[in-house]
């Protein structure tokens, strides 16, 4: 029932509130004098957003992987493909592209914009080379008469490699965006946190594409 509490303690509340155990990311009133609208917070945003997006992409590939595993176990028509050799090259190319992106990022952090631009371009070209190698692999299979519906393993191969390639293509678009912005940067502008955050976010995505490829490669050809 309602009671009016008339204890003897007096509490005046002024100024900032106190004592929560979970400070907010922008400071729980503890950052005196800081501009609240903190440009740094925006950079966190890109990174957080990218990890969140990757969680969902990972879930989709997890679903397809579990379908793959179930299908492999469920019937007696599982004839795994022999791996097209060019896929070794694909793997090497994409690993290299992760490396080149890291070099690009390092250039950006050191404000060497032309270096950043150059290594972004190299990464993009490697990405295109990767897609090219995938196309060659598919051609190779088609020449052997192995298509999407030929057998379950081929279905998964085409599906998983195409899904990965599609996402990688998205990554290429992102690289292009960074490249265009980098070109503008050459003309004027400072390397600010926001720019670094965008590059960071694209980098996280790109490395994820790399790791995803390696995982798919192992799943398709080394897990029977």
């Amino acid at each position: 029932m309602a009671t009016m509490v008339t204890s003897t303690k007096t509490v005046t509340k002024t100024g900032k509130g106190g004592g929560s155990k979970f400070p907010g990311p922008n400071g729980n009133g503890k950052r005196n004098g800081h501009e609240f609208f903190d440009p740094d917070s925006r950079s966190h945003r890109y990174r957080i957003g990218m990890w969140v997006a990757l969680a969902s992409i990972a879930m989709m590939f997890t679903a397809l992987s579990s379908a793959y595993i179930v299908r492999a176990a469920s019937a007696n028509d599982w004839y795994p493909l022999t791996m097209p050799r060019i896929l070794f090259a694909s793997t090497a190319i994409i690993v290299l592209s992760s490396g080149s992106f890291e070099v690009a990022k390092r250039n950006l952090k050191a404000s060497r914009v032309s270096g950043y631009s150059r290594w972004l371009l190299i990464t993009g070209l490697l990405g295109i080379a990767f897609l090219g190698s995938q196309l060659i692999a598919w051609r190779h299979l088609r020449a052997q008469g192995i298509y999407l519906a030929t057998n379950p393993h081929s279905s998964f191969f085409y599906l998983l490699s195409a899904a990965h390639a599609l996402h990688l293509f998205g990554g290429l678009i992102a690289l292009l965006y960074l490249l265009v912005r980098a070109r503008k940067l050459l003309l004027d502008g400072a390397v600010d946190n926001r720019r670094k955050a965008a590059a960071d976010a694209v980098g996280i995505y790109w490395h994820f594409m790399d790791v995803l490829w390696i995982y798919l490669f192992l799943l398709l050809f080394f897990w029977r």
Partner: protein
Amino acid sequence: MGRVLAVIIWLLTLLSVAIFFNKKWWLPPAISDHAPALDRQFMLTIIIVGIAFAAAQIGLGWMVWKYRDSGRADDRGLYTHGSNRLEVIWTVITAVVFISLGVMGQRVWASLRLNDAPAGSYSVEVVAQQFQWNFHYPGKDNVFGRTDPSLIDDSAVNFIGLDESDPNAKDDASVTSLVIPVNRPIELKLRSKDVIHSFWVPPLRFKQDLVPGMEIKVHFTVNKVGKYELACAELCGQNHFKMKSYMLVLPEDQLTALSALPQEQFQAKLQELLNNTPLAPSY
């Protein structure tokens, strides 16, 4: 307003409970050996559910009845953020009740699904299709003739793809109704030709999907003779609502006599029995 709301909530609660417990519309009389245990578990559950339902609605109504805003500025609600002790108590109690119910609710399931049909079961192969049931009986030799999908020919009335060249198939029968003996374990081998169907006879308290590409074996024992309606319980296309058949439960000796009949006469005699047996009452 609060009073009216409380009364309406309580009235709706009363009517809801009444529609259950007047038992005018209820589970049909059970005919299987596992049904009493299932029905007991159901009663236990529905009583707990009923109590929880009524208690929550009564509590909700009570709060709403009692705690109205008087509009006076000095009349305030109770300032509390809750009680950790209460949270622990009601969480533990709820968890114990719910999880116990859950564990108890596995017993009938385990007895039916975790073991194979006992030796000496009466076996029938069930092959479902859009939109009829096909029941394959092994006949006097008690051996099922070979079937193969490539031999299926609906227009030639070979619905299950029976291989006529197989000697074991000579005495097999494939008909659209299920006939089984009373008081003997029944094993059904469930298959489907096209899409998922589901075998269901309500008084049996048993249901199982028939999945293309799988042969699913189930078993149960019926303890009451009679004729019961069999319905499909998984959407299988436009005529799902009339994919109907019958389950005829006969005394053992009658069934033996029926099974001994040659193929051509089996179907006719079964149809005659079906026509002459009235439907068992469903309530």
